[in-house]
């Protein structure tokens, strides 16, 4: 059993080599350069390595995972450096640096403000020193304070105020008297009855939903019943959204398999 591992490894290596060779020599009809052949094979190999996780944790998954972690960490660091530091910071603080990186120098009266993030950034790095760790809380306080300030108003504006105004829906739609209503009463989709039902459900649903989120009142009696209905509404919401998302998730898998079948194996398309 011990050396089964090595057999598998050997098999994987051989397959990799074969695929590389086949792609390069145009074995699949398409003629790629040696590099492209390698890259496609690599991509396919990594794809399968991740999928192998479905069976159980294994060295190939571990390999893919660790590679992914390393590469992705570096990826975002590089983007951050070029877009933010070179793109936004240098042009505002130093003419020399902007000239070196060939970005347009943007002198301005308010640029000295950009000392703030730099200082805070340095303070953040202070935590690497055993003594000044507590200084790293200042930039944090700044960040939190800012978002708190922004969120406070933004949410009052959009979510709160707007949601209230959008809950103004008349329950009764094109009412033409009871006679008319009952004479052609039906459950046709989009019929008057269904429309009313929809509005009613939305209104009661929102109402009970909010009741469920009351924290400082015991959920007993009528209040408790309302909050119970609230939970049911929420459960419908969750069940429905779950079912609704499935389709999107399947599409993702279709996408990956299409890559394997088309770009790598070239058996369909």
């Amino acid at each position, binding site marked *: 059993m011990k050396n089964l591992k090595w057999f598998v490894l050997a098999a994987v290596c051989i397959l990799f080599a074969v695929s590389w060779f086949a792609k390069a020599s145009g074995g699949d009809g398409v003629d790629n350069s040696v590099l492209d052949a390698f890259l496609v094979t690599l991509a396919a190999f990594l794809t399968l390595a991740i999928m192998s996780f479905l069976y159980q944790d294994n060295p190939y998954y571990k390999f893919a995972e660790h590679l992914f972690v390393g590469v992705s960490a570096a990826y975002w660091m590089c983007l951050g450096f070029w877009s*933010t530091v070179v793109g936004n910071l240098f042009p505002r603080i130093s003419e020399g640096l902007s000239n070196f990186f060939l970005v347009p120098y943007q002198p301005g009266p308010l640029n000295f403000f950009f000392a703030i993030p730099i200082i805070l950034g340095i303070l953040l790095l202070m935590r690497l020193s055993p003594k000044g760790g507590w200084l790293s*809380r200042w930039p944090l306080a700044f960040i939190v304070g800012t978002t708190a300030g922004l969120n406070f108003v933004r949410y009052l504006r959009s979510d709160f105020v707007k949601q209230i105004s959008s809950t103004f829906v008349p329950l009764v739609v094109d009412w033409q008297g009871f006679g008319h209503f009952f004479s052609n009463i039906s459950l046709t989709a989009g019929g008057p009855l269904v429309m009313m039902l929809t509005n009613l459900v939305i209104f009661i649903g929102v109402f*009970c939903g909010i009741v469920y989120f009351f924290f400082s009142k015991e959920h007993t009696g009528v209040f408790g019943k309302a909050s119970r209905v609230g939970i049911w509404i929420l459960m419908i919401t969750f069940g429905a959204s779950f079912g609704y998302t499935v389709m999107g998730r399947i599409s993702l898998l279709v996408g990956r398999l299409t890559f394997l079948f088309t770009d790598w194996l070239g058996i369909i398309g």
Partner: protein
Amino acid sequence: MRREVPLIITILVGTVLIISVFIPPLESLGESFTLFFDIIAVFAFFLGGGNLVRVHVLKLAKKKRDWPFSIVTLVGFGVMLAAGLFKIGNPGDIAASVTAEGSLFNMIYRNVFVPLGSTMYALLAFFVASASYRAFRAKNREATILLVAAFIILLGSTPFGAWLTIWMPESMSILEIPNLAVWIMSSPNMAGQRAIMIGIGLGVVSMSLRLILGIERSYLGEDGA
């Protein structure tokens, strides 16, 4: 000193930003402050990258379990970092975009980063299935409601949904599975979403207020308040 200064900063910045919304001359303040984040965040990258390297070097040094794989991480990290910072293989001069076509950075991105990421994402297709097998069971009333709603929607998104209820008279058409699915999505589902949204909106507002008033201090490494 250690506790007060951060609190003062939070309170000050928060209040200024709230006021700025109503004072046209200060409106742009929010944007420049968010720009400050990105810059601070870049400094934070050093912390992150440093920590990553530290963790894996320690793993190597102590020969912990799976230590060989730490080499993979470190190599991947090093290569990608070099490729990005020195723009290896980038066409044009230093001003060229870091993700330019043909650069080593872009090559690794397209052939390692993307396939790994999208495959990881695609695993959801499997997990959605196993989750619904495990969890959609009529244990109690709530679970049953959850199950039924999901079931109708799932059925509604296949042609079978339509066939099952094709016999229904036009006057009952809302009960045909596809229509029913549509109705659930647009009525109770909508209501639930809105209720949660209002709750979250208020929650955020009140939490922000707590932060600005210096009541909530967990982010300063103090337990609770």
